[in-house]
């Protein structure tokens, strides 16, 4: 073991396995300095009018063509876009960084609604793997079922599936809320780091395996707990929050939240209290 008495502060921290990095990079200054807020510009965003509505039939389009057309429509000010005939295509509705009402009349394939920040999306079908991956803000509602890795690495927003979802829901999530009306598969909340997952039905094996932080609420049976996942007391404020969320999510409004189980991380991890950049943005 390193001799902690004879090393400088910086190397001492490093010897203990920690770091003393201060986030002072250009990105931090540009996006999170309140003095520069008036100069803030979010590349790739548009001012849209929710009352300006149009349809887009993507039956004969590739995913790239469809996404370009959505971008073009937003640049024209359309704030409500209805996508017809998505027919399970992959990667539709990705990279939308502004407010938008986006409605899919059908099902999506893999990686739908990826890397979005702000849109309100409704999918009147099912979604494949990795829906809404990296969602920063907004609301995504899926009327039917969803595949695995639902809401992987989301940092904010509400992600709602009224049906059942596959394995690894909320894997690596760093914020936001995922709400599942049906059942969820194995490894739900795997390595989740922040945020909340609500499952009204049953959940598979290894729930919350290796979770750092965050909270999982389960209404049904749990297949098994993963490493580091433990039960916690369901408080009155938890129940109030659950009722509010389920109402907003248009799902399980009459569900008896008092009987839900609350699962949290059993270990407190070192050096894990720094705010995420999105949380800093919210604080400003």
């Amino acid at each position, binding site marked *: 073991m390193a001799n902690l008495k004879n090393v400088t502060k910086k190397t001492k921290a490093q010897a203990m396995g920690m770091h003393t990095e201060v986030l002072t990079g250009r990105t931090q200054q540009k996006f999170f300095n309140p003095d520069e807020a008036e100069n803030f510009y979010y590349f790739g965003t548009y001012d849209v009018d929710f009352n300006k509505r149009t349809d887009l039939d993507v039956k004969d389009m590739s995913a790239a063509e469809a996404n370009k057309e959505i971008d073009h429509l937003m640049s024209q000010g359309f704030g409500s876009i209805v996508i017809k005939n998505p027919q399970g295509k992959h990667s539709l509705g990705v990279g939308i960084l502004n407010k938008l009402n986006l409605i899919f009349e059908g099902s999506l394939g893999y990686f739908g609604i990826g890397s979005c920040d702000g849109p309100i999306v409704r999918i009147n079908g099912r979604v494949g793997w990795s829906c809404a991956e990296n969602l920063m803000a907004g609301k995504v509602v899926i009327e039917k079922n969803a*595949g695995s890795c639902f809401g992987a690495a989301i940092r904010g927003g509400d992600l709602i599936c009224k049906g*059942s979802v596959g394995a690894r829901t909320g894997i690596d999530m760093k914020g936001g809320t995922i709400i599942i009306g049906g059942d969820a*598969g194995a490894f739900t909340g795997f390595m989740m780091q922040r945020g909340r997952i609500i499952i009204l039905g049953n959940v598979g094996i290894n729930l919350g395996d290796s979770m750092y932080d965050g909270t999982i609420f389960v209404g049904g049976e749990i297949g098994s707990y993963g490493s580091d996942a433990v039960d916690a007391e369901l408080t009155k404020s938890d129940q109030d929050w659950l009722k509010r969320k389920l109402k907003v999510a248009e799902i399980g409004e009459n569900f008896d939240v008092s009987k839900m189980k609350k699962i949290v991380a059993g270990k407190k991890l070192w050096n894990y209290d720094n705010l995420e950049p999105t949380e800093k943005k919210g604080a400003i």
Partner: protein
Amino acid sequence: MCGIAGLIHRGKSSKVGYELQGMLQALKHRGEDSTGYALYGDTDGKNFIMRFKVGENVGEGSSSVAEDVSVYDERKKIVDSYLSDMGAKIVKEERILPYSLRYEIQYEKKDLLEFSQKIESIPGVEILSMGKSLEVIKDLGNAKIVCDRYNLDKVVGTHAIGHARMATESGVDIKSAHPFWGYPFSDVSVVHNGQLTNYWNNRRALENKGMRFMSECDSELIAVYLAEKMRDGASLEEGMKESLSGLDGVFTYFVATKDSLGMAKDTMAAKPLVLYESDDLVAMGSEEIAIRSILPQEIDTYDPFDGEVKVWQI
């Protein structure tokens, strides 16, 4: 990566060759080194249909060594001779390609182990399938190329499974292509997407029991594993359930028999599968777009959960 697809019509027949071609072609971005079909056609059930190859396709990026066509002719003659020796009568013979043949055979014995061992003792000869309904057709290229090459779009039957392959751990050749026949079981075939990590342990154990392996493709193990379980008296579903603990790794696989189609997903659900189920049709594939190729209208589909095994009858 690889893509798999399967469908079963319940209570009726359909153009399963054409339908499976559409499903596999929709998955071609998951791999088009080779494509294979296991088609369960409508037959009178009297004769065996033996699909076999006497050589490899050495074009289109194949990892096989070129051989003269005269070598194929010589092997075919020996096959014919061995069939005669074993009392198997060739009722109909088709040579679709120089290296690929289809025989209809009258053969009375039920145990095909001895039969298969005899035929495959000829170097370069491999039985792709043996059954009274099953026909395995596999070759290099995407689904459309293979379908056109073997005229599969007109095949009428009840069910089918198929595979679009991206070669990763074994060669680009027909012997490594899926589906695999459940040697030596009549009418059993398997396709698989995933990776098995206890392949060699299982292979050694099965080889000690007399089972044969033609490739080093881990997917072949599943077919032989299930065939061996069924040979020991297990039902298809029982064998599949045992495979969840007997096979280590990540996998989704389909297995088909003369009158049924099954799927199994590993306990970590690491490999994709989307499933559509109605009273008269079950269709499934690695991605929803495979199902959409035959059912473009809005339908309800779902992902089976971890460790799930399902079997449907025609």
